[in-house]
């Protein structure tokens, strides 16, 4: 059986004033039925662009330059627009980054959920209403609030309503693009737990996009770490247990660990490279504390380090050594000074 979502060597470019930015540059991953994949990386690494491409809502200046996005075996990039439009929300739904502005302010929440149903299936009004109430109950919202306007909801309620809207047609795949942006920490946690519960209960296939390593570690079955338009490490939970790529090491160090409060948080010095004119060789080399001249010359391929776990680094054999060294903040600081 085909994977629910299979992204194969995807290249996405944005036309900008300074030239074409390669926002996504040869990314591949796949999600099997019922799996929860987390796509992690810094802002601007291309993770949201992938979400947009999967939903077919790339902005006008963005285009899929090469590669395939296969949904249940069919390449949706080259699907006729009308057919793709029918698939959206019915097969692939979105929990967006911007719940704050994700609803049209001049329509009620119910109207907006309803129009998603009407666009795809011909249920009678009573059935639509029943389904919407059912979902509101599932996400813990009172049904009286259905006739409210979005501005009458708090941020957390709005995001819950978004989740309800995403689930309304029982889609095969749900893409959650930074679903907790702009919410306070407690609400963030509630939302993520809600998503996780729904995922487990309904056996949903999910793609979670986030910059928060801890969130992925807590929720996902599979992880793809992205850096500057590429996947640098990909695999199951072992990606956190035994990270192999120096960037993944850096990300793990940059997030607090409740079990180990003594540990110092280390940030990765520097900033991601320009995507219009990316550096030759490994894109992380300029910020990498372990980089050698070879790194900035030759681009390392994604290599399997264990079954189902791969990373893109020239020195995978020294991963254990890097892991130990990366706990020393001094190493990173020196890399920052060199860069």
């Amino acid at each position: 059986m085909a994977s629910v979502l299979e992204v194969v060597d995807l290249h996405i470019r944005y036309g900008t004033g300074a030239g074409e930015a390669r926002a996504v540059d040869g990314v591949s991953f796949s999600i099997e039925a019922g799996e929860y994949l987390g796509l992690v990386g810094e802002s601007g690494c291309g993770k949201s662009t992938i979400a947009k491409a999967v939903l077919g809502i790339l902005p006008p200046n963005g285009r899929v330059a090469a590669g395939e996005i296969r949904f249940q075996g069919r390449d949706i990039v080259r699907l006729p627009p009308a057919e793709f439009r029918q698939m959206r929300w019915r097969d692939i739904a979105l929990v967006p980054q911007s719940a704050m502005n994700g609803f049209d302010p001049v329509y009620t929440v119910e109207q907006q959920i309803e129009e998603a149903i009407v666009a795809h299936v011909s249920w009678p009004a009573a059935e639509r209403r029943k389904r919407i109430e059912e979902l509101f109950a599932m996400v813990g919202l009172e049904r009286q609030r259905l006739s409210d306007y979005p501005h009458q909801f708090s941020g957390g309620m709005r995001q819950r309503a978004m989740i309800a809207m995403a689930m309304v047609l029982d889609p095969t795949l749900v893409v959650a693009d930074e679903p907790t942006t702009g919410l306070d920490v407690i609400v963030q946690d509630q939302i993520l737990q809600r998503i996780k519960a729904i995922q487990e209960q309904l056996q949903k296939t999910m793609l979670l996009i986030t910059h928060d390593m801890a969130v992925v570690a807590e929720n996902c079955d599979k992880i793809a770490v992205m850096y500057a338009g590429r996947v640098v490490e990909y695999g199951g939970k072992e990606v956190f247990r035994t990270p192999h790529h120096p960037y993944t090491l850096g990300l793990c160090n940059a997030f607090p660990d409740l079990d180990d409060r003594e540990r110092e948080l280390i940030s990765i010095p520097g900033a991601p490279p320009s995507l219009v004119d990316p550096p030759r060789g490994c894109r992380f080399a300029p910020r990498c504390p372990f980089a050698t001249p070879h790194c900035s010359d030759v681009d390392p391929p994604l290599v399997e380090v264990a079954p189902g776990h791969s990373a893109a680094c020239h020195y995978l054999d020294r991963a254990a050594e890097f892991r130990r060294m990366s706990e020393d903040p001094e190493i990173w600081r020196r890399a920052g000074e060199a860069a």
Partner: protein
Amino acid sequence: MQGFRRYVIRRLMLLVFVIWCILTIMFGLFQLLPGDPTSIFIDSNFSPDMIERQKDLWGLNDPIWLQYLRYIRNMALFDFGQSFFQIAPVSEIMADKVKNTALMIVPALVISIVLGTIIGAIAGWRRGSKFEQSTVATSLFLHSAPSFFVGILVLMVFSYQLRWLPPGGMVSLGGPDGFWEMIVARDYWVHLILPGLVLVSREITGPILLLRSSMLEVKGSDFLDILRAKGLPERQIVTHATRNALLPLVTYIAVMTGLLFQGQVLLEIIFAWPGIGRELVQALNDLDYPVAQAALYVMALVTLALNFIADLLYGVIDPRVTYE
């Protein structure tokens, strides 16, 4: 709903206050005008005794505060007195002129708003297209073309050269007179074509440019991405965007209609349309105080009323507006 009622009452009170201010200013202005009604109205051969009697009759010898109070009361009751030159109560003249002006403006307004909204929305949605570029260029051109010039031009072409359309007036001589008779008369519509066209050509540019720019603003909203992701047809997405872009138009329409009601002096003169603007100019030339006063007052009232309606309407079309 209680908040709404309180808001309406507060707004009404403000309205009354503004009307009072306008009346008071007008009273002062007309006091400053040279001469007094008697010098215009009364034959110079009248004896001083007769003039005094006439002044007594009109209350012009009363103390100023009494005159002021009487003036306020009469204005509030729409009792504008008698015209100096026309044998009719001013309120009747006003009602007639307002009707005539409305007969010219309202059809043009409706066309401008409906068509302008649609064109502007499409132009904004298709940013960078040939359609948008030509729409903006045309609108700016029409917007800056002076209406007296365009008016004379179309008169020259369609009336004097081609002889397709009448050169002016609302109806032909002996044509229908009442409001409803005119609405159904072909004659009225034929007379409306030229002035209506000139009006639309200028007034349509406002909604076009406004909606285009507010559409551009809405186009950046995140919710449009969600609508697209929901797999809605393009038409429905444009409807959502337009509904949001319409909000600023409501205020604009109120202001525009108010301005139209007072600003059509030139068109009314060029097309010999017996409207309120022409009447005001005529009255000022003749020093026909009661008519001039009433015309100014009616124009102010229309503008205020439209703004008041716009304020109320805003709360209806934008659910985010509350009256708490």
